[in-house]
């Protein structure tokens, strides 16, 4: 199949950097096997691969660590996977500028280790840091618990280089922390899931490593109390870096006591600042009915953002909500009730201070038929309204067939399709997998 294309790809990236046939199994998405997977050694290689794929009228699928490859509407057909793993250099890190430029294929963990050695860090803590790549994290707009204070990629990315659908290599933003020259292309590429271009290099703002950091768990007997405590905390003088909320199943997955609700709060800064805030948090928590606080080990951070996913060996589906922060506890309560009504358990975690909620449905041998799971997800989606939205972030193909993976973007969807049509008129970049069918 496509022998001339494979030859062409081998000529571009070298014969050892093209996979085909049975070697493609790691790159199967929703049952669709790609035609080839290539490992380019430069942005120029990627541009040439882009043109080769276009000539063969095949889609091109950017690939980082693969951690978010299953997110999205199932692909209509296989294409050429462009894996970024050979492009993993840290191009420039000037500590005095508090910026770093790195190639897209570097893993988040590698990047952080290199920055840490010079007293700095990228204040972005997505799940699966060992596997997730910088480019993938940007394309999927992934973030972790510390987003409460430090924001997401849109607050940190200041420059991007990408290969576009016509095989051009383009740059947006720059290497300086403040820059309004031209359109803000970094914002365009963040969370665009590879549908507008292949991110090959990025420049980001950094922060100095804090002197001290601590993560504290606050167990509550009632979800409502935890919700009220969250509002109390946000209205206080404290400056937490993370404000997460876990239900019993998610708390248990982290090895915590399975109480109905656990607020998990992070602080950093000078030692005295962390000490003072942990003490104040204890007072706030008690005022809202908690018995006290428990300091967690630093290793708990990485478990925290996966808590809902980790509650079940293999969940039947996972949905991520964006709601108003004050609605987080209600969303969890309604979502739990909806799953229970259909006889299934669920697990919940949330970045409560910013209104990002993750719910997982438990796979149950007797009851998790796709129609049931889809019915629950449809009710969950309704719980995000009005004002919020909810999208399926993981589900088997049979469930994806029964409801839209992405929520309805309303009138803005037309604009998204117009952007896609301008920037990728032939629909070659990871087509059909994102919001509005782009």
């Amino acid at each position, binding site marked *: 199949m496509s022998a001339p294309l494979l030859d062409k790809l081998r000529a571009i990236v070298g014969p050892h950097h093209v996979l085909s046939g049975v070697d493609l199994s790691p790159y199967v998405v929703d049952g669709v096997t790609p035609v080839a997977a290539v490992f380019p050694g430069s942005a120029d290689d990627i541009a040439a691969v882009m043109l080769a794929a276009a000539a063969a009228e095949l889609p091109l699928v950017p690939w980082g660590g693969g951690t978010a490859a299953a997110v999205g509407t199932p692909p209509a057909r296989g294409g050429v996977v462009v894996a970024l793993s050979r492009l993993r250099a840290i191009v420039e890190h000037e500590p005095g500028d508090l910026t770093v430029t790195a190639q897209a294929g570097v893993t988040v963990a590698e990047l952080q280790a290199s920055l840490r050695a010079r007293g700095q860090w990228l204040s972005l803590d997505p799940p699966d840091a060992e596997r997730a790549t910088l480019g993938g994290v940007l394309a999927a707009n992934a973030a972790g618990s510390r987003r409460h204070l430090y924001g997401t990629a849109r607050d940190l990315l200041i420059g991007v280089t990408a290969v576009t659908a016509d095989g051009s290599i383009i740059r947006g933003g720059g290497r*300086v922390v403040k820059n309004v020259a031209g359109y803000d292309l970094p*914002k365009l590429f963040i969370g665009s899931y590879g549908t507008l271009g292949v991110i090959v290099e990025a420049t980001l703002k950094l922060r100095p490593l804090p002197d001290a950091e601590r993560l504290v768990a606050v167990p509550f007997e009632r979800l409502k109390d935890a919700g009220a405590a969250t509002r109390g905390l946000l209205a206080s003088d404290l400056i937490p870096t993370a404000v997460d909320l876990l239900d019993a199943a998610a708390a248990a997955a982290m090895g915590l006591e399975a109480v109905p609700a656990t607020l998990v709060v992070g602080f950093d800064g000078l030692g005295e600042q962390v000490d003072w805030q942990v003490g104040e948090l204890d007072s706030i928590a008690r005022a809202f009915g908690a018995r006290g606080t428990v300091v967690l080990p630093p290793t708990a951070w990485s478990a925290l953002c996966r808590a809902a996913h980790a509650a079940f060996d293999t969940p039947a589906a996972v949905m991520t909500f964006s709601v108003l922060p004050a609605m987080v506890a209600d969303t969890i309560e309604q979502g739990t009730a909806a799953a229970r009504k259909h006889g299934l358990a669920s697990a919940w975690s949330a970045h409560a201070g910013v209104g990002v909620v993750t719910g997982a449905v438990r796979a149950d041998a007797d009851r998790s038929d796709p129609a049931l799971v889809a019915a629950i997800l449809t009710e969950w989606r309704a719980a995000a309204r009005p004002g919020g939205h909810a999208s399926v972030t993981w589900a088997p193909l049979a469930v994806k067939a029964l409801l839209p993976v992405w929520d309805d973007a309303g009138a803005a969807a037309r604009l998204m399709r117009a952007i896609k049509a301008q920037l990728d008129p032939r629909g070659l970049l990871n087509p059909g997998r994102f919001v509005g069918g782009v």
Partner: protein
Amino acid sequence: MATISVDRKGALRHELETIVGAGGVLSDPEELLVYESDGLTLFRALADFVVFPRSAEQVAAVVTLANRESIPFVARGAGTGLSGGCLPAEGGLVISLMRMNRVLEVDYDNQIAVVEPGLVNLHLSWAVGPRGYYYAPDPSSQQACTIGGNIANNSGGPHTLKYGVTVNHVLGLEVVLPDGEIVWLGGRTRDALGYDIAGVFVGSEGTFGIATKIVVRIMKKPQAVKTVLAVFDHVDGASAAVSSIIARGLVPAAVEMIDQLTIQAVEDAFGCGYPRDAAAALLIELDGLAVGMESQAERIVAACREAGAREVRTAADEAERQLLWKGRKSAFGAYGRVSPAYMVMDGVIPRTKLPYVLTRVNEIVAAHGLRVGNVFHAGDGNLHPNILYDPRKPGEEARVVEAGAQIMKVCAEVGGSISGEHGIGLEKADFMPFIFSAADLAFMQKLKAAFNPTGLCNPGKMFPTKKSCVEAGPVAYRPHAIEAQGLAQRF
């Protein structure tokens, strides 16, 4: 440059009045003069009409009419912009948002506010201040500039060093697209669904449409604030102190530099307590928890002293703090004391290149026989050289423009940018190739076409043109009509 025939004008005026009401349309040339430029008076262009809608529906109706008639249109806030971005470069309609200036809603539980585009930036902080909140982006013109204008330019300000620029505080926008459709981009929640169109819209300089409602984050006022003034006998010492503060892992809310010429102008005008003989001063602000504030301030003081500060003092109370900030925020106005005119430059450089670039700026300006005052956001490398000149002297204005272009080239050469917060507009459209390739610009043009396929929405901005549509040639400076009347000053 009016573009509409006299015959059509009467009919159009009538139609516009039907949409926005009889008092909402200007077409008298005398009245239009007020809207012929923004804060950068070097560029001027006359509209055919200025209209003052009161709602998104009225904006949409005006835009729909403009489309039907193929008339260009541009949104305008307070007109404090510094790049000519809101000028009607090809004539047509100026859509002033100044009558849409309400705070529509404040949701303290979720720390957001919904505002109209004509709301003055500072008025939002006033509205939420009594409950202990504020709106973080604080351009120096915040007493006059509007949130809608801030959206167009992705405006910054001194405190953006710690808190980010406008886009970092905007969650959603109701927008009238260039074809007249009203859509919401983003919303009230943190993460957008689909492409971050609201994020891309911010900073698009009015070429993607007109924002009619804006959802912004409001923030808790910090528990404690400390403001430090460090005085230096050498500019290099001040630059070194900036690097030293960053290297010590400190993240102040603001680090502003003010040079000698500016200090003297400010002292003449306002008497803010800066030493007149200093070569440069740094205004450094820390905010956050009360705990640890003292020890962080000590680290700042130590960094400044090591870099050669001859004096480092802390504002004793809120009144002294306000006075120090008044000097900084009113500096542009104070140049009027020492020069008949000045041109504000806006460039960004990596912080570590500060000593080199400041030297180059001074050399370039001197080589053109001109003087420069520097007052800028040193903490994030955002320079504002203000080139002083006398427009009555033949050729001087042309030398200012030439020196400005060279300064922008230096910013680009050291890996910086040609605008940190003022935008490209008309002023820097031809400088875009300093930092962007033809492919970069072509990609941006395609993006623009997705929003603005007819090009009627704010034409002639941001992209290099062979021939500017604005009246070219040496335009002698004259104070803008509203400046002359003492109604406005340039920031």
